[in-house]
């Protein structure tokens, strides 16, 4: 909440500084359009629609009334809602005083907001359906309607708005320097722009914790540090005395993983080494899937491995056969791992399949970096061909292609869809790069001291972290962070106790790795595989065909010869027949071998020394 308010502070302040007329171009256009609309039709009263709606509702009610009455009589008691409805019907929306309610019924919910909470399409119940089916369907529809309505209503409680940056009429926002912004905004927000000069231990990679409070920095030459970056409180600082390829927070800020020169190490927040996982070697990039508690690693040997950090088990190790894997991203929507390859392809992986779910050719040169947005709609890639491409990852279709003069080495998408691309030592931020019209110029740009090695937006904050050769830069990007956080999911202001409780809950709600697939709604669908297919899979899973051999069932015999004892005897006669066959065979083979050996020994004994020509002798 606090952060939101602070963020809100930006625009006004910035405007004061830069703008003389406060009108933005976009808003002007919008207004004119409205103007045109006015010309076309008579101005619509805001109450008209609602009245019509209520009329309809009333008509429906009246048609349903006859049915309802019966059921009500049967039931004998009314729920509160029904009672209210009835009362309304009685009074016909009028009060006893004779006045009519100008806003009858519940307050209407904007359609856009309703759409936001729509889950799947509504099912029309066909006419000829059976009673029971119709009942279940209508009931479930009513339930989902209720859920949608309620959620849309409660959306009102998300009061915070995202910030934005606005320049003068001729001024590009990308020319506004970070210093100016930091000066213009309030002190707390201004303090979010800072530089860490760490020249000694080489280019830095970074990772923000999911709450956005903690920052993890890993210098290439072994410097690992975690900071509570808002308070600038140093939690730990160590040098692992090895090359550090990548770093990643695990599910909470208590633990983090470091991909070192040889193996994967896990440290706690005070810098104590907890594990050295030797199964994961030569790791170059890592991704953590928070809802599955999976740490996915891509190694130089071409292996994609999944580590379940809740139980410490390796879930899957997939040989990708695509060479060195140093470009990696995760799709937060369906937990699929995206890998970029030097041959310009991007492959999508789940731990359940040994082959890529999707392989798409994105660039003519190698893929340098890629990132996927929060909703799982867009994938942004950059390649050696100096192009930046935006894909609709649901349909695997390219949307935009931009040519960056220097190409982009690091990409990152913020919670609200701002794209940051690092070209050399410049960090550019694009707004609306994914959807909408193609972008011609960046929203913001900032030059850092050294070559950029890693970029990452801070969750729930308007901050972009840049790790580079000369240290770390935290820059302010208004409008990048999500202003409304879900405290049950990720609470930036949580206490230790709350964190612990969240941890337990999250572990209980952990999603199994088997459920990772391109469509996360797979679980709610009916498995329509044929019996043969299922049988085949079963055979593969079990290792043999359980239906291949029919169980021996002794024939029924008369005159007391089918007594339990005799049946059992007969069964025993046939039991393990196949095994016995095998045994007989192997025993025979062994015997033969033995014989041969003996014979050859005899021959040897007979012949004494072996002559050169013995090899041409036929052995019986």
């Amino acid at each position, binding site marked *: 909440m606090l952060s939101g308010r602070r963020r809100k502070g930006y625009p006004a302040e910035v405007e004061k500084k830069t703008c003389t007329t406060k*009108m933005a171009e976009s808003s002007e256009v919008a207004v*004119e359009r409205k*103007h*045109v609309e006015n*010309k076309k039709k008579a101005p619509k009263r805001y109450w008209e629609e609602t009245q019509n709606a209520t009329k309809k509702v009333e008509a429906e009610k009246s048609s349903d009334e006859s049915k309802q009455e019966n059921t009500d*009589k*049967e039931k*004998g*008691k009314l729920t509160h809602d029904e009672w*209210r409805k009835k009362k309304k019907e009685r009074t016909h929306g009028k*009060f006893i*005083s004779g006045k009519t309610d100008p*806003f009858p019924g*519940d*307050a209407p919910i904007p359609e856009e907001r309703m759409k936001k909470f729509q889950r799947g399409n509504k099912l029309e119940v066909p006419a000829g359906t*059976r009673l*029971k089916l119709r*009942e279940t*369907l209508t009931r479930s529809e009513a*339930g989902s309607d*209720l*859920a949608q309505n*309620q959620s849309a209503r409660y959306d*009102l409680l998300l009061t915070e708005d995202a910030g934005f940056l606005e320049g003068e009429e001729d001024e590009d926002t990308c020319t506004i320097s970070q210093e100016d912004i930091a000066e213009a905004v309030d002190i707390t927000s201004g303090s979010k722009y800072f530089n860490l000069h760490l020249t000694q231990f080489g280019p830095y990679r970074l990772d923000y914790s999911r709450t956005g409070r903690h920052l993890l920095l890993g210098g290439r030459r072994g410097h690992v540090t975690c900071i509570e970056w808002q308070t600038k409180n140093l939690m730990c600082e160590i040098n692992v005395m090895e090359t550090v390829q990548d770093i990643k927070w695990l599910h909470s800020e208590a633990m983090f993983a470091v991909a070192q020169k040889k193996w994967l190490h896990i440290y706690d927040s005070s810098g104590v080494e907890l594990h050295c996982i030797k199964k994961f070697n030569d790791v170059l990039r890592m991704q953590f899937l928070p809802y599955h508690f999976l740490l996915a690693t891509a190694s130089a040997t071409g292996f994609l491995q999944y580590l379940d950090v809740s139980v410490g088990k390796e879930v899957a190790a997939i040989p990708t056969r695509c060479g060195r894997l140093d470009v990696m991203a995760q799709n937060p929507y369906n937990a699929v791992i995206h890998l970029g390859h030097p*041959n*310009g392809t991007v492959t999508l992986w789940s731990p359940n*399949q040994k082959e890529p*779910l*999707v*392989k*798409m050719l994105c660039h*003519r*040169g190698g893929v340098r970096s890629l990132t996927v947005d929060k909703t799982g709609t867009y994938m942004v890639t950059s390649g*050696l*061909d100096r192009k930046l491409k935006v894909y609709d990852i649901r349909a*695997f279709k390219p949307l935009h292609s*931009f*040519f*960056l*003069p*220097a190409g982009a080495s690091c990409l990152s998408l913020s919670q609200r869809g701002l794209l940051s691309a690092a*070209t*050399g*030592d*410049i960090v550019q931020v694009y707004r609306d790069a994914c959807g909408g*019209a*193609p*972008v011609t110029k960046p929203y913001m*740009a900032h030059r850092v001291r050294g070559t950029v090695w890693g970029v990452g937006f801070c969750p729930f904050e308007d901050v972009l972290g840049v790790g580079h050769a000369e240290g770390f830069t935290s820059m302010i990007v208004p409008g990048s962070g999500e202003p409304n956080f879900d405290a*049950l999911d990720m609470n930036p202001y949580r206490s230790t106790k709350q964190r612990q409780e969240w941890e337990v809950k999250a572990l209980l709600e952990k999603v199994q790795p*088997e*459920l990772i*697939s391109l469509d996360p*709604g*797979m*679980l*709610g669908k*009916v498995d329509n595989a044929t019996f043969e297919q*299922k049988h085949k*899979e079963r055979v593969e899973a079990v290792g043999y065909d359980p239906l291949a051999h029919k169980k021996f069932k002794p024939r029924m015999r008369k005159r007391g010869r089918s007594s339990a004892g005799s049946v059992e005897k007969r069964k025993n006669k046939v039991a393990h027949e196949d095994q016995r066959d095998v045994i007989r065979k192997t025993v025979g083979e062994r015997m033969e071998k033995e014989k041969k050996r003996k014979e050859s020994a005899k021959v040897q004994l007979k012949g004494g020394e072996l002559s050169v020509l013995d090899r041409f002798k036929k052995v019986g």
Partner: protein
Amino acid sequence: MSSKSSVEAAPAVMAAEDNDEELSSLEDENVISASEDEEGSEDERKHTKLLEAISSLGGRRRMKQTERSEASLQVSEFSVAADGAGEKVELSDLLGTMEKTPGAPNKTKKQLKNLQNRKDTLELPLSKQETEKIQRGVAYKKSSREVSRWESVITQNQKAEQLVFPLRQDPTGHKRMEQVVAGWKARTPLEQEIFSLLHSNSQPIHDPVLTPVEEASIKAMSLEEAKIRRAELQKARALQSYYEAKARRESKIKSKLYHRVQKKAKRRDFLKQFEEMVKTDPDAALEELKRMELSRMQERMTLKHQNSGKWAKAKAIMAKYDHSARKAMQEQLEINKDLTQKLAVPSEDEDEEKNGDEEAGALPDFVNDPEPILDPVNPWMRGKLSKEEPEPEVEASTEARDEDLEVQQQQEEEEEEENEEEKLLREFERKRKLREDEDDDLVPVPQEEENQTLPVAGAEQASSIEVSAEDGSKITDNNDEDKDDKVDEDDKDEEEEEEEEEEAEEVVSEFNSLFNRLMKSNTTPAVPDQNEGEELLDEGLVRVQTMEDLEALRKDRTNEANQEASVPATDTPTAPESASEPPNKKKRRRKEIDLKKVLTKQATVVKVPLAPTVLEEEEEEEAEVHTEQAAIIKEAFAGDDVISDFLKDKRKQEEAGRPKVVDLTLPGWGEWGGLGLKPSKNKRRKFRKKVAPPPPRQDKKLPAVIISEKRDASVAAHQVSQLPFPFQNPTQFESCVRTPIGQTWNTQTTVRKLTAPRVVTKMGAIIEPMSREDLVPKQKSNEAKRGAAILLEEKRERGKKKGSGGKRALQQKKKKMQKQKKTKE
């Protein structure tokens, strides 16, 4: 007779042996035992036994011979005729004696005759099986009717979203004490004992809280009334206590002056009373007069005012110097004079009267009327005394009079106070009486007042809201609306409040619309300034009275503005659209996309404000041309390589996905086989098993994408493998499952509703099977209850709304009742 018959029976039996072989041996024995007393019969028995034995010897086994006999001790052998054995017994044989007997009634004879004449036979009774079948059918019908009564309940319960057990739950909320007590029964021995004690002492048991009188009183008085009455009583009691306290205080006052004044006042009062009494009740007045006389006499006797007392002597000494003392003395003397004055003797009176009579001849009648000033000494006898009072005061000295006046004023004030209190008390009394007369009436005044005040208050509120809105709390408008919505949702059901809200809402909404319009006009820069000027001017000319007028006015104006500003407005939005849309459209239209085209698609060049330093450095360090060329070459080669590789890969995948044709041709079958001979084409065609082509690949239309067609079996383990029962197709099931019900995605209320349990039981409550009483009567009672509740509500509302009307009706009722009572009396 019996002995005869028994004797005769034996030969008859013997004769009938052949015919009746199946008669039981038991009877046989009986007969034998019956005739045991005679020796001859014993012999006979032996003889028969012998015969039997002989006959049994004869190879063929004979059935046991039986004999017909009568089971009595004295059976005569001769009574039953043997010759009649074979004949049928006719009804006439039996009834023949009837006609001979004289005692038989005619009626029975007739009936018997009729019987005789009837020839149709009785039907055979149904066989056991059939009767049972019919009985079963009837029983089945009955029981099925019984059972089918439950059907609706069962289906209802099956349909119900939620069942709450136990079915009969006591209504939540408060119960009346009487109900609780009435429902209670003595269970433990102690309780029973207590109850028996109560019973023996004829104490109320079932409804110990209220006696009939109390109930009646409760019925007679509503709660509000009771409250009012209680308040009244409280006030009365308080007043009484004040009175008492006051009296006590006054009694302790030692000021003589005060007491004197008091006495005077009392006297005055008394006089007034007396005067009235004379008018109304002369007898009582006479009585009073007598008493007064007595008291006067007593006072005379006491010599109190003779100026001989200690006090009087002291005063006499002081009188020379002290003015007040002198005055007091004078007063004393006055009183003394009064007292000692000889009263007019009745005879004298008569004389006077006579004189008067004498005079009456000369004078008119009115002279006899009492004259106010004539007799100042004895005021009691005169009619009007009030006018006399000032005179003695006039006589008193001026100073004293002043003091007196002051005191009097005080006293009068006090009196006034008293009067007020008395008034109140009297009022109470009156009210009580009224109440007793007219049973329960609410006080109409406050309600009327409310009614009067309400609209005023509403108006005031509205005006205040208006004012506040005008003050400029424009941002809060939405909030206000929201609040209103919330209030609506809450639905407090208080009409008055709602009215107020409505008014407020109306005001707010009007304000909102106005504000919005204002905002629009502000935010539309397209409207030129001169228009605004016109608006201002227009406002002066046309008076806008309603919102509609305003709207229309605005519309006209905006239209004008649009016409003016149409050219630039149309230009601006189209330009960017034309720039942005075409690539998307093309993509959609073209289905077969050329891979190379996709990859080498025209990319929009992004202008970067800051040139990357690295490149610059490179350029500085190395030759520009060389690097560029190298990059170009690398890019070109890489691109070619990449695309072809990818296409190959894709083709391979497609091949792998395609099912293979199975060749089952066996060479040599049906034709010549051997080295160098191949089976014929026809045969090969015949034996090649073609597999149905697989469904089209997902990436069929995506040239740059390979989508794996492999089925992911791991999810399948968690999926539903068979369509659950009520659903007919997977889409139905999927749509039912699509909405999450967890707390993460839903509000609290929704979760509670969606996850409500199917069956709810009450902890510790016994769930009894549904009884038959639950079926029908319950509904009735429920309905009745509901009806009653509704009625009550209506009554209440009516009482609230038009209290006076209701009251009137009640009064009328009461009156009727009273009349009835009177008539009964």
